[in-house]
């Protein structure tokens, strides 16, 4: 788990570079809430607190929450969401190893349903003034339009969903300087940093290639196919892969072993399904980014996927020389 945290550091560094130090405050808030919630639950459940706290799993949940939430979300939202993830999504299901749903994604889904406005309040690139950011986070000062902006995904959704606007992908993305040409200025670089961290996790054998490769490939393929057919309505594959939570999700969220599939084929199906759902929600859904819902929906399917994808056992492979079926 500590290696997972280490792998997130490049992404966080780039995040700070583009969007200021607020994200560090969010990470600290979420970490403190996660550790406090985890300790309290462990104590209530009569488990050795220090031993379980040291596994780092609560911190991973906390960091993922901080990184998927807007960095200028009010402090109480981050804290409440983290406590919800740890207490309800994790410990009420039996704690480490027992939760059927990814706790960080449960927190995200609950928050975006309960506080859609706050969850859509993203800082504009260049808004790195720490004092101003803290004012938004702690004093609930309403964020000015000057400091917030819609993410490219959000802008695309709101514009393209209104037929009368006759908006096109190129038009929407070109309408705002900060959207840049690829996936939102700054965000592409953060995504690339996540990719670097994810590749390091692969190299360290913390995760296997199945989930990230299947997720990114399927997302790119679907997005590519639709954008070829109708480039005005559907954004291209590169945009989908580097924007929103795709890269973070591919390497850090969908790879959660506890709530994900475990067989090699199961991982491919799980990730492909998550990618498909992400694209569908992004393109047709009511929420700008579908990563959280896609992962939660696929979490639901995990027992079925695992059951249906049991690999053959040594000596029981049908066509193999010598390996007889029973």
């Amino acid at each position, binding site marked *: 788990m500590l290696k997972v945290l280490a792998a997130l550091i490049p992404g966080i560094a780039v995040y700070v570079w583009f969007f200021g130090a607020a994200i560090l405050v969010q990470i600290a808030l979420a970490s403190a809430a996660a550790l406090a919630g985890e300790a309290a639950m462990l104590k209530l459940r009569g488990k*050795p607190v220090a031993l*379980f706290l040291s596994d780092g799993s609560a911190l991973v949940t906390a960091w993922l929450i901080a990184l998927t939430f807007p960095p200028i979300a009010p402090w109480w939202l981050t804290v409440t969401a983290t406590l919800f993830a740890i207490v309800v999504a994790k410990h009420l299901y039996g704690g*480490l190893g027992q939760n059927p749903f990814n706790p960080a994604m449960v927190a995200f889904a609950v928050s975006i349903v309960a506080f859609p406005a706050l969850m859509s309040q993203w800082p504009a690139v260049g808004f790195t003034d720490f004092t101003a950011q803290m004012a938004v986070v702690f004093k609930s000062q309403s964020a000015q339009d000057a400091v917030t902006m819609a993410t490219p995904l959000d802008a695309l959704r709101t514009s393209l969903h209104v037929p009368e606007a006759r908006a096109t992908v190129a038009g929407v993305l070109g309408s705002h300087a900060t959207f840049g040409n690829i996936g939102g200025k700054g965000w592409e670089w953060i995504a690339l940093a996540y990719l670097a961290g994810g590749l390091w996790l692969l190299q360290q054998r913390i995760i296997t290639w199945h989930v990230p490769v299947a997720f990114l490939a399927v997302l790119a393929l679907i997005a590519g196919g639709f954008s070829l057919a109708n480039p005005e309505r559907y954004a291209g594959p590169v945009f989908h892969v580097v924007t929103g939570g795709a890269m973070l999700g591919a390497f850090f969220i969908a790879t959660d*072993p506890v709530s994900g599939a475990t067989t090699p084929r199961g991982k491919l199906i799980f990730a492909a399904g998550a990618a498909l759902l992400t694209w569908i929600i992004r393109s047709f859904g009511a929420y700008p980014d579908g990563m959280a819902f896609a992962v939660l929906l696929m979490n639901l399917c995990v027992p079925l996927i695992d059951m249906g994808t049991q*690999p053959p*056992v*040594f*000596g029981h492979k049908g066509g193999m*020389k010598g390996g*007889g079926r029973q």
Partner: protein
Amino acid sequence: MLATLFKFEGGVKPDSHKDESSQAPIAAAPVPARLVVPLRQSAGNAPLPLVQPGQKVLKGEPIGAADGSFSAAVHAPTSGTVLALEPRTLPHPSGLSAACVVIAPDGEERWIERAPLDWRSASPEALRDRLRDMGIVGLGGATFPSHIKLKPGAAGRIETLVINGAECEPWITCDDRLMRERAEGIVRGIDILRHIVSAGRVLVGVEDNKPQAVAALRAAIAQSHGIEVVPVPTRYPAGGEKQLIRVLTGIEIPYGRFGSEYGVQCFNVGTAYSVHRAIEIGEPLVSRIVTVSGNVARPGNFETLIGTPIDALLALVAPKADTDRYIMGGPMMGFTLARTDLPVTKAANCILAASPALFPRPGTEMPCIRCGACTRACPAELQPHELYWFARSKNFGKAQEYHIFDCIECGCCAYVCPSNIRLVDYYRFAKTSMRALEREKAAADAARQRFEFRNLRSEREAKEKAERLAAKTAAARQAIAGGEKPAAAAMPAAPEQAQALPQLDEAKKALIAAAITRAQAQKEGVQPKNIDNLAPEKQAEIREIEARRAQVRELAKTPPEEPV
């Protein structure tokens, strides 16, 4: 290199720790003051004891005869006097005890007459019987009787013989030393094994961390054709029988099947060597090479008489002060010995002295996070984390569905588990629980059959008794009613008493015959079906009881009648 190597999935690469014990030549462990030789030292039936306390035995004299074909004989490891034939604790994880022959050596090491066998002209059957009577069993640790593995299987012929010199467990070097020092004997044993099964090719698999062993074997096979020494990649458990067969031939043998069914069979190098001793010299298996290593001052390999107390071996290597326990077998598959006064058996390839520094106890067991490290390490390609959940929740049906019995208990999963879960212990628990449940079910079935049989019997007896009583009453009534014809049936004609005797006899015989047929008909009528499936000896017992019962009934029927 002719052979193309295949690959088995999973596996781990623990520190090998071979150098500690592989440097010194094999030394002979001295004959101890007492030898405790367990009768049952192989898979299958326990041999039948052939000796009695007080009896003198010679070295190599059989003390236990193979009981049936799935068994192997046991021999006196040295000459001396049998002190006792009694249950003693065995070096086994269960800590159970079983019949052992205790021998006080006389120190003279007098052999029985050793008769070599000209194997080239002997039939495979004769050679297999000889191996059984020489107590040859697999020395890799499983102690499966070798003669059974040499029977041709469903595939007809064993085309490929795989000889296992991989020795993949860390610390253990007994096969390594054997290959380096006695390669010629191993090759001669291989020739005999090959002759028995008329195998076309022989592949000797040796992990590539034992170059001296490979060189020695290659030098020894210079004259033999069709034997190939193949260095295999060092990766635990490459020396697992199924894994080595897979690596060398590409054939996968599922659980519960013999290699011979797939035209391949595997023997350990130590077994091959003991085959050579048994056939060409006439020496039964009375000793084996044991690696004694770990936290000791003078690790090494010792040619040890079967039955030597482990204590005596440990005295040779001087365990260090911080030794906290002893392990029989390697660190991956071995088990902690509860005591060290237990005997060395044919299965004992290694004794390790463990210290907290050398063999740290695994950390606290944490929850499984389904990370899949175990799945990637499993050479049987199982889903260990799923099996763990099923075993933990005692969902044995599901565990079986996920092939828990295919688990070879190699320990790779537990070795890589980041949550320190002792996975193999859970599988062993599940397997033994399932076997116990099956035994219980069989016992319950037998009890139910006995109960039903008893009910039927008592019903039948009550019925018969009632019939007899009714018949008696009827006879009495008849006698009272027809006073002028007393005992009409028994004494037909009073005036002709002189000739009556033979007639009476005839009448009696007819009556008895009628009674017997009646009884038989009755018996057949109510014969319960559940005794049909019993073992022959049980059925014989039942027949005996029935015969006695019939006799009693006849006695009861023939006059003079006793009051019932």
